[in-house]
């Protein structure tokens, strides 16, 4: 029982880590980023190359990949998203436009990765060492994902709810039309939220690459999972993403242990469906 609880939390930590960035991008910048998973995969490849070709430890690689991904995300926003934001008459239109654009971006990223790295399976071993948590052996790299997601989540919550800058971001998320009336630069807030979201995708990618086998085309799997977590948790809600991520991890693990590993996916979608029926805006979402 305890063993499954721990395994479930560790698995959920990965989901939460991967989903928080999408939640920020969707909630604050209002960009429904379908290329989110491919950003994760790009970071996976970057980590793999730094590790296997240059011998750079993936933890150290974070110091290179995170600033790089922030800059790249900022560039993507400036170059591609900003024109959409400027011409979109309302939120709904921006959402549709951003879905179309990022759907295209997905294939661009995927195509580039395919050309550079080919379609083969990539996997390497790092921190695959057993760590005992209350008597359950979990792998170090997965535990790192849980710890990172909790730490980043906590930091984000503090920033969002305890700082002036966080308040600005929340204002933009809550009332994008009224925020400028208070002298808030909504463009800047959205830009930064998008870039921070991209950076968090990269963080997820670096950590996930340590334990998960990936190919140039597996990004969509991450996008799907992150999307479920974001909608389940309530869009834009960081605590929501963490709770929903951990919940999914627990559901999957308990179903695999007590019912059947074949039903893990079905159980995820059942939980998704039930929760949406009860709370259409997600666990922490506002109407």
């Amino acid at each position, binding site marked *: 029982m305890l063993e499954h609880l721990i395994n479930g939390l560790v698995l959920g930590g990965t989901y939460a880590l991967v989903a928080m960035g999408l939640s920020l991008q969707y909630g604050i910048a209002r960009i429904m980023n379908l290329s989110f998973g491919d950003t994760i995969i790009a970071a996976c490849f970057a980590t793999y190359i730094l590790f296997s070709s240059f011998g750079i430890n993936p933890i150290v690689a974070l110091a290179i990949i995170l600033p790089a991904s922030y800059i790249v995300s900022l560039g993507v926003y400036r170059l591609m998203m900003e024109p959409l934001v400027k011409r979109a008459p309302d939120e709904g239109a921006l959402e549709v436009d951003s879905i179309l654009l990022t759907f295209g971006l997905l294939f661009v990223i995927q195509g580039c990765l395919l050309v550079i790295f080919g379609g083969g399976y990539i996997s390497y071993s790092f921190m695959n060492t057993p760590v005992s948590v209350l008597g359950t052996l979990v792998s170090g790299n997965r535990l790192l994902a849980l710890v990172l997601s909790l730490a980043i989540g906590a930091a984000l919550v503090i920033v969002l709810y305890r700082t002036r800058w966080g308040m600005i971001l929340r204002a933009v998320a809550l009332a994008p039309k009224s925020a400028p009336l208070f002298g808030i630069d909504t463009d800047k807030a959205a830009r930064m939220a998008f870039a921070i979201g991209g950076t968090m995708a990269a963080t997820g990618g670096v950590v996930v690459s340590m334990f998960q086998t990936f190919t140039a085309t597996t990004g969509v799997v991450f996008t799907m999972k992150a999307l479920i977590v974001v909608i389940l948790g309530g869009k834009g809600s960081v605590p929501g993403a963490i709770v929903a991520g951990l919940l999914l991890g627990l559901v999957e693990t308990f179903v695999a242990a007590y019912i059947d590993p074949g039903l*893990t996916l079905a159980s995820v979608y059942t939980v998704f469906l039930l929760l949406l029926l009860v709370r259409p805006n997600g666990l922490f979402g506002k109407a």
Partner: protein
Amino acid sequence: MKNFLSGAMRAPRHLATCAVAALAITGSATGLAAQDREAVTIGYAISKSGPNAGGADMTVTPNYELWIEEVNAAGGLKMPDGTRLPIEAIAYDDRSSTEDVVRAIERLATQDKVDLILPPWGTGFNLAIAPLMAKFGYPHLAGAAVTDKASDFVERWESSFWFMGGSHDYVSAFTEILVAEREAGRINDKISMVSVADGFGIDLVKAARPSFEEAGFDIVYDKTFPPETSDFATIVSEASNSEADTFVAFTYPPHSFGLTKQAKVASFNPEIFYLGVGAGFPVYPNIAGGSVEGVMSLGGIDPNNELNSAYRAKHEEIIGRAPDYWGSVLIYASLQMLEQAIERVGLDKEAITAEISTGTFATVLGEETRLENNQLRAINWVGQWQDGAFVAVSPEGSEGLAAVQLPKPNWD
């Protein structure tokens, strides 16, 4: 011509149809007088993107590229009259979709009018194109396809050849080893088994259940999981609680890698640890992060076979990485057979089919490789990691097969 017309009927625009038909007529007219041709066009559709890209990129595509490069470096394909014609390759990406692979084969046959078509990766994909290949009369050298129904298929599609055996072959060879180990008192009669709920996993587990049970084994843990699964903590912990000495997993590479990592973390070290696709990849020890001694899977090679060693060296030299230890060499052998058949009978598709069916060839598998009922049977069914190589094994060892070494030692 009838075939061509029925294919063209489906073309959306009449103008295009007319244009293609006109081209086809002129094409076939000159095709007859092809003695002074300058090249042999060989087409293939392969998964370069999508979920199948990983498998295709390991086992099939590199061998096509290697073979074409080797042939062209030697001046081209040798014809019966001694002249050599270089290969011009046309490759399409089927994007891991069976609809696309069928469309691409149709295109290769009717529009590109290639001389020969090489098959795609995967059992389902080969079955999808088999009727087309037969219809257009191309020899179909189904390499990366595991099927128990090959004997039926060769009757339905006479130009089809099957190079990778069937699930029963792999499972019964493995069961033999299990029985021998149980008789030697090294394992108990319990098996824990998981499989991926997708093509390969379903086929193998369907063959394995009756095979294990007939041999008197008790399958105490028998679960399937969806292909998207990436976390194996629960499965490994349930399997290790099952008291079975034998762990069998019919899996694709991501699962094989994930299970290995999790088994190391959880110190799950059953007497027999058998995985599906991926455990025979040369990168597997690297991915596992250290020793994989004793891990078993499908395939395996004979490390003392010089032909095979030369092939592996050449593959590494030209492609830049080593081939896998299961399907690669079979694919390459099928290409060698095709090459030698052309050298004997020329480019007539029917003659090539007949020659491959009945001829004897010198391939990487041996000096005298021949097919039985259009199927390659000289396949290594079970392999095991021994001293850093994935070698083909049998219970006692024999010609070309090492003796299996069990129980599996500890991870590291």
